[in-house]
């Protein structure tokens, strides 16, 4: 058994190709590292981006098509998790661009923030964010998010019942 290409979730083994692919966007290296571990521990494949601009490129929205990992041949991004406060393009700006795009608008976007600002939360949810979560994230937050990922992968249109 090749242990590097699969990871265990409880008793079930999840193969590399079946793992949900999460794009983590945060300007903080520390937070990128932590979120990456949180998601890989939940049997997800993770790609990180340090800015909204870089994230858009990885989603195939930038000028450089070579960095597009979201094309039809390659692995698809199943979830975007973005920090709200980032220099340049904020998480909200990124959210807007994703939701207004012609080809990636269906990808669920989670906005995370260290600040609990009701107007900010409302704004993001109104713009189509799946959820708004306060930082720092815990393993339990990520476990709850897995239902969003599986939901979009295979069960479009069905209600997410959560756990």
């Amino acid at each position, binding site marked *: 058994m090749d242990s590097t290409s699969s990871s265990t979730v409880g008793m079930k083994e999840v193969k590399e190709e079946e793992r949900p692919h999460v794009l983590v966007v945060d300007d*903080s*290296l*520390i937070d990128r*590292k*932590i979120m990456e*571990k949180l998601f890989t521990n939940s049997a997800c494949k993770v790609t990180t981006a340090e800015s909204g601009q870089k994230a858009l490129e990885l989603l195939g929205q930038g000028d450089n098509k070579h960095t597009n990992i979201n094309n039809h041949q390659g692995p698809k991004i199943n979830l975007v998790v973005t920090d709200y*406060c980032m220099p340049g393009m904020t998480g909200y700006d990124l959210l807007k661009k994703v939701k207004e795009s012609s080809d990636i608008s269906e990808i669920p976007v989670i906005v995370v923030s260290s600040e609990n600002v009701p107007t900010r939360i409302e704004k993001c949810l109104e713009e189509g964010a799946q959820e708004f979560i306060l*930082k*720092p994230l815990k*393993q339990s937050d990520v476990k709850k998010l897995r239902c969003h990922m599986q939901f979009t992968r295979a069960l479009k249109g069905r209600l997410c019942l959560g756990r």
Partner: protein
Amino acid sequence: MAAVIQLQRQFIDYTTSLYKEGYLDDQFTQLQKLQDESNPDFVVEVVSLFFEDSEKLLNNLATALQQKTVDYKQVDSHVHQFKGSSSSIGAQRVTNVCVHFRNFCEEKNLDGCLRCLQQAKHEYILVRNKLEALFRLEQQILQAGGSIPMME
């Protein structure tokens, strides 16, 4: 064998005191829970990033507050980053100072900011020393053939 048990006891007592005295909070425990065989140095790696980041931020803050005309937006931006990173690793006392620091930035209170900078530096050095001591204890336990006790 007795050496391992004694070291483990020391580790438990030391860790408990760090939480009790508010140096660390639950977020640090969360980081420890994330560590596994595939990434056995995860906590040390993240904390090392925090040390590097903090030292840069403290220098930037000192410089920013020494300017003839202080740019409080810039100062606040550094404090916001410091607040974020300290909160991410569970360095609670540092985070708490940052909260006050941001209030002084909003008020454009130079005196308050300078005091907070000193406090932030002080708390950072304290938690850095304590974490380094904790990591040394961990190494001693491992070298003596023992395993690190899991803290709940």
